[in-house]
């Protein structure tokens, strides 16, 4: 396959940046999207040019590191996969492909396609954990949890924090991510103790980071590689209102 890539190049966080076109040839349809960029980078390195910087780690869709908007869609055109799981057979020979970084005020570009997603870490730090002393791990069957609840908590916990929801949202809202991280604990008895303060703190931190508000367009859910559902956003709306009305944080 021969392709024309239009890639966002930006030297550092203060550089203005711009698109640059690259021709790549002899790309195998069996290559992953990241391997295709590896081929380009190999060529650029041989020519003495600066390779295209991009985030990647596990390359099997579980770490949430890879982050590219490909032809206007986070993680590319396929449903429920990350960029590293996207293969070149999803494109046609001669295609023009535009590759951009996640775009959000809260995700400043570090270099080229790499953005700083530490805003997500700070949301987790604000309350996305259980801090009560639990002693030794209790036997799994000692805390009865209905299968449906356990499944739903697991669905929320499937979030890999890649930020595709923010990238896809027209408002750069982090509601899907934050709601998944709140839901996974709100659904389980272990999360109940800190339930109210958790949702208050995490939503507060989310606002502080400068993410937009949710307009319920559903773009996040459609682009999420783990198919996190809008159900979690509705739950967090309930959790947040209940916490604001009944918590002791005045």
């Amino acid at each position, binding site marked *: 396959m021969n392709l024309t890539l239009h890639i966002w190049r930006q030297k550092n966080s203060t550089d203005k940046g711009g698109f640059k076109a690259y021709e790549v040839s002899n790309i195998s349809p069996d290559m992953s999207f990241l391997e295709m960029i590896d081929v380009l980078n190999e060529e650029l390195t041989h020519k003495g040019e600066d390779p295209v910087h991009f985030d990647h780690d596990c390359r099997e869709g579980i770490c949430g590191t890879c982050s590219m908007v490909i032809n206007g869609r986070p993680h590319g055109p396929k449903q429920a996969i990350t960029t590293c799981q996207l293969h070149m057979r999803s494109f046609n020979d001669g295609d023009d492909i*535009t590759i951009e970084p996640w775009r959000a005020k*809260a995700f400043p570009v570090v270099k080229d396609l790499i953005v700083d997603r530490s805003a997500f870490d700070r949301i987790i730090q604000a309350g996305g954990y259980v801090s009560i002393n639990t002693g030794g791990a209790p036997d799994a069957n000692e805390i009865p949890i209905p299968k449906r609840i356990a499944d739903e908590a697991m669905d929320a916990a499937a979030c890999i924090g890649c930020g595709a929801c923010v990238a896809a949202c027209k408002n*750069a809202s982090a509601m899907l991510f934050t709601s998944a991280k709140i839901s996974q604990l709100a659904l389980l008895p272990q999360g109940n103790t800190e339930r109210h303060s958790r949702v208050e703190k995490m939503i507060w931190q989310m606002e502080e980071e400068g993410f*937009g508000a949710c307009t*319920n367009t*559903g773009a996040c859910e459609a682009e999420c590689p783990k198919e996190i559902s809008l159900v979690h956003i*509705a739950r967090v*709306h309930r959790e947040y209102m209940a916490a*604001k009305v009944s918590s002791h944080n*005045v």
Partner: protein
Amino acid sequence: MNWFLSALTSGIGRKVIMSLTGLFLILFLVIHLAGNLQLLKEDGGVAFNEYSHFMAHNPLIQFVSKANFFFILLHAFVSYTLYIKNKNARPVGYKVSAGSANSSWSSRSMSLLGTLIFIFILLHLRGFWYEFKYGTEVTSTVVNGVEMHNAYQWVADAYANPLIATFYVISMLVLGFHLWHGFSSAFQSLGLNHVKYNGLIKLAGKFYAIAVPAAFAIIPVLLYLKSLS
């Protein structure tokens, strides 16, 4: 900040305000439509004139109408603050955007649609509400011994103008698109997302978004056609 204010001014709090005011306005539209449909009665406007006279003189209705104005302004103002917040959240946009791949046009265009509706409301109030309340050009009529505005004649004369009739029909199309997303979105913002009711909410929303604006829009069309004969 006070917990109540911080809750209301947060993104979620503002969405809840949008939702509650939106649902109120959705209810209001049904009442408004019920009144308007009397324009179609073949009674020379008696029913519509009695209805508008009642609406303008009933203290409870007058109180609710003030609340209605307030909720329209609140809905518009809060959406404006959300619009600013959301624009600021993405200072640099995408070169290629594939919004239609993951969301509906109406859901992405709520601010634009809402602004158009707001302009419509201003012109609509100027043309009808203001003229009935403060204008001097609306003629009078006597219904059952009570002298009142001939509101029917004023509306019928307005819709005899094809430009005004067309403006109303197009505005109702805009309203339909706004409701296409707004109706079900209001429930989601309140946290009402449940497998038992989602289907009903979606279906009711789509039905409402088509039926109510269409019923509003048919009135200027019919009155215009009537004016031709």
